[in-house]
């Protein structure tokens, strides 16, 4: 337990020190997105990696959080700090209600149902033009602020977002190593045995689905208040797949893995500017390669690779 806390402290220190190394600038902006995507990937990972239930519609919860926060604070003049938790509560409750019927389904059927859920939300963002501005988007969303401190610069946004991301990491690490975390993994490995041991699998799945939606909604609100402009294009099916790719590439059932996956998939396009139009192909390809050659994701695959390389080197010497 102590080692885990130490590991987290080191990670947090690294994150907090990063702006010093980059001296602001363009990369800071990208690192803000790494933070948001890490939250999203962790949310999905709780559901998929820990509990073994797929969702192809999580971009919808992200978008719903963003729009609720955006519309409340822009059109209705709410304080963003009030809009954000309200959005999270609404999205969490909605997920809870959707979760009960939908999570009865398994495998392909659950994939299809969540896919449909995401598509419906995307259509709503597009069609409720009076509220959301439709395809042309919603602009002029206010930044979050504390007193006179406005989170509008790269560095201040970075610290704002990463405070939320680090809190998410810490809380979900706690969760993963607890009674509830074990119950989640038990449902993943053998639902029938988990039930015989007293785990209410049905309720637990719905709870974790709702929690995962709440995290996505918070990430959405943060996104809206940082970007100050949102449009439906950011919350479509493509982004759900991108999130799935982050989770699988980083490592199913690993919180730090979700950070790795999010970081890789957020930074990669910045270095592959030319390939921008082919991003979905690159994600698809990466997903296939990972599943074939590193099913445990980067967090497990890379140390494994090193171990194997070292061992081979050792054999040659012997």
């Amino acid at each position, binding site marked *: 337990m102590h080692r885990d806390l130490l590991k987290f402290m080191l990670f947090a220190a690294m994150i907090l020190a990063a702006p010093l190394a980059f001296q602001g600038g363009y990369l800071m902006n990208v690192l803000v997105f790494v933070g948001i995507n890490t939250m999203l990937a962790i949310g999905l990972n709780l559901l998929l990696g820990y509990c073994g239930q797929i969702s192809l519609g999580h971009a919808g919860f992200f978008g719903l959080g963003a729009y609720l926060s955006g519309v409340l604070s822009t059109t209705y003049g709410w304080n963003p700090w009030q809009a954000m938790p309200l959005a999270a509560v609404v999205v969490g409750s909605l997920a809870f209600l959707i979760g009960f019927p939908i999570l009865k389904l398994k495998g392909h059927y659950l994939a299809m149902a969540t896919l449909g859920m995401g598509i419906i939300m995307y259509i709503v963002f597009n069609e409720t033009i009076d509220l959301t501005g439709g395809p042309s988007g919603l602009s002029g969303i206010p930044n979050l602020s504390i007193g006179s401190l406005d989170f509008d610069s790269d560095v201040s946004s970075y610290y704002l977002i990463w405070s939320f991301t680090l809190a998410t990491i810490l809380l979900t690490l*706690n969760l993963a190593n607890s*009674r509830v975390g074990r119950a989640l993994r038990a449902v993943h490995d053998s639902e029938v*045995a988990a039930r015989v041991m007293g785990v209410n699998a049905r309720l637990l799945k719905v709870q974790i689905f709702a929690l995962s939606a709440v995290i996505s909604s918070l990430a959405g609100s943060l996104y809206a208040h940082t970007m100050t402009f949102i449009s439906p294009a950011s919350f479509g099916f493509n982004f759900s797949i991108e999130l799935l790719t982050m989770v699988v590439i980083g490592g199913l059932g690993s919180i730090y893995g979700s950070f790795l996956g999010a970081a890789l998939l957020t930074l990669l396009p910045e270095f592959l500017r030319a390939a921008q139009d082919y991003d979905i192909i690159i994600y698809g390809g990466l997903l296939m390669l990972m599943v074939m050659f590193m099913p445990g994701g980067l967090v497990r695959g890379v140390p494994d690779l090193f171990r194997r390389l070292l061992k081979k080197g050792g054999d040659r010497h012997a």
Partner: protein
Amino acid sequence: MLEVSGITQIFGGVTALEDVSFSIRKGDITGVIGPNGAGKTTLFNIITGIYTQTAGRVVLNDTDVSGLPPEKLVRLGLVRTFQNIELFGGMSVLENVMVGLHTRSSSGLLACSLRMPWSRREEVRIRSGALKWLEFTGIADLAGVTAANLPFGKGRMLEIARALAAEPVIILMDEPAAGLNSQETLGLAQLIRRIRDLGITVVLVEHDMELVMDICDRIVVLNLGRKLTEGIPCEIQENHEVIAAYLGDDD
């Protein structure tokens, strides 16, 4: 203690069980035997709430528990192990047994995420409780091993340890000796007696006749979904119908 009456189970056109009734006495080791396909596992699935029977009742300690789901039944003290081992393969041996203490603990989503003091205290209690059952079943040295990597025999022990961690009043074991070597089977017989000595009622589905005759106080015989007979081991051994049922089969 446990009473089943008039249990009938029809799958599509197949009648897996037909009007099966018997009762199990507190503190006994009761064997349920019968040729392959007799309906033993189906009976266990009904008693433990995994299937809902077509007809009939299950009564546990004078309460009708028919149709209750497994997660409720374990709270009334009923647990089981599986014919095809059902471990939590990705988790360590210790963690598997810690899940066994799920009903003996209560920290929820929020308390666990925030590591509240009481949930941390509970975690310590869960861990030491789980270790106790690993020691009881003789696999404490494997605590850190990932369950999927366990040898088969140890996996069976782990399933029993996990079930005992729920502190049941009655445990149903579906062919616990299947796949064990003779040494391991002897150990299992000892273990089952020690479980009974804890005051836990044991119901055992088993094909290993030597084991059954050795440790069971009573035996219920199923054949083709019907109860053939029941009695003490020496009665069963000499029952012509039972012998015929087994000879008719390949066993």
